[in-house]
């Protein structure tokens, strides 16, 4: 199983110390190795599972249902300006 622990950590915005990275790499390898056992099963006639529940087609009608949580949420935001959330400056995506 080959993966770059630093890359995965980077994508998850985690800053790992070298010893943490080494430990997590071992843990992840163990988990992936365990899951790999599944590959020994014959899944030729099994369609891929995209959901664990056997239900489908759960809809809601197109109706507006105002929630009015804004002020509560903004109270807990790390930064606000008026009714906006305020975040460190971002310029590009």
């Amino acid at each position: 199983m080959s993966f770059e622990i630093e890359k995965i950590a980077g994508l998850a915005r985690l800053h790992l110390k070298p010893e943490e990275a080494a430990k997590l790499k071992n843990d992840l390898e163990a988990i992936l190795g365990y899951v790999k056992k599944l590959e020994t099963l014959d899944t030729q006639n099994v369609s891929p599972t995209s959901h664990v529940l056997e239900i489908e087609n759960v809809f809601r009608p197109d109706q507006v249902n105002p929630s009015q949580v804004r002020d509560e949420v903004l109270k807990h935001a790390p930064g606000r300006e008026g009714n906006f959330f305020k975040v460190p400056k971002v310029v590009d995506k």
Partner: protein
Amino acid sequence: MNYEPVIGLEVHVQLLTQSKLFCGCSTKFGEEPNKNTCPVCLGWPGSLPVLNEEALKLALKVGLALNCEISGRLKFDRKNYFYPDLPKAYQISQYDNPVNGKGWLEIEYKPNKAVILSPDAEASKMENPEAQGDSQKVQDDKKMITKKIGITRAHLEEDAGKLLHEGIAAASLVDYNRAGTPLLEIVSEPDLRSPEEAYAYLTSLKAILQYLEVSDCNMEEGSLRCDANVSIRKAGESKFGTKAEIKNMNSFKAVQKAIQYEIKRQTDLLESHERVIQETRLWNETKGQTFTMRSKEEAHDYRYFPEPDLVPFSISKETVEGIRKDLPELPVQRVDRFIKNYSLSDYDALVLVQDKQLANYFETAVAEKANPKLASNWIQSELLALVNSNKHTVETLPKFFPATYLAELLGLIENQTISGKIAKDVVAISYESGKSPGTVVKEKSLEQVTDTKLLESAADKIIAAHPKSVADFKAGKRQALGFLVGQLMKETQGKANPKLANEILVRKLS
């Protein structure tokens, strides 16, 4: 070296629903910041999204109109990335089982688009007074080109929030009102070969969306957005070149210009033996250039996986057929009908039909007994000119100059009450004042002068006053007649029947 551009477009269109894609927040534009938010679209732990049934229905309508394969099996996936406009740090989108699969769309355009000249009634036109209402469209005789453009897919996804950067130091402000709004992302195959074709694609796609009434397609409010993938390759090559993704165009014209610029930029690079880099570039409208968007060190890695909070969906054939049966008349069908029923040219039919409201206006006028060909000409020249010069829109045209007025005006021309030239003044006055053309003609006594005696004496006066032109005409210069007819028109404040004025002068001069 000859290069061939290869262009694919990604269009995001906001679907016309009352509520968001996965929650009951309103989708209304222009609300106070963050007013339309709730635990679901703000991504609170423990909240669960539930699919808006109407959004799926609208998506299917588009799929059917774009001839897409609809498997009936669909699911949602998480597209993961960190950015402050995305409260959950993932966007619910569709990866491998989109609502709509492969389809196609037909574009029709005239290469080097026809110029529609606003006809100043030059005297020379008077030589041909039977010309349709003087409002002649000068068209090149190039044939319309029809081309099938492939659609890769059209999938449902939620929109992100809106970030504000300008005028704020060291911070960005976030408004999540838009977060969770239903979008349909329509991806074209790289089948487009020129900026012109890209423009034609957008115009016909927008027309389809408007006829389906699935979106208001307002680019300014962001309900229709377009990104372009542009690359070039040597003519005859089958492999694609390296592409750049161009963003930030806020009109179809801007898309066309940005692609134009990008083709030139890439061509210059290859000509000077440099390489095109795969990157995202932003169009700057003021500068008319594209610029590198500061790129991340790593390529995007979205780590798509099935959205566990939403169950899968299956749509029955009956549901799909039910939606198909209810599809309205689509632009391509309406164009055919206009050509067949009203004997319009391909070009005229297309111009009218691509704007649903314009086409409706036309049909109302025709129902009021307007001559279809004349109505089409007058709409495309005089009326659109008035709409534009007043900075109005086609939507408000019936308010200023109802279709019944157009029918009335054309009637006045056809029964020779007024000349086509005077009719132009009448339209302008009528548009301005709200009075009907008939009233305007009466109030201003604009009826055509068909009194032969009166015209003859005026003609004598003109002939006496312009001996040089008379001599020129006799020497075979046809333009001289145009000038003299023009003078006669002037003498009668434009009210002379042009055909009669023409005849009288020719008779007197020969």
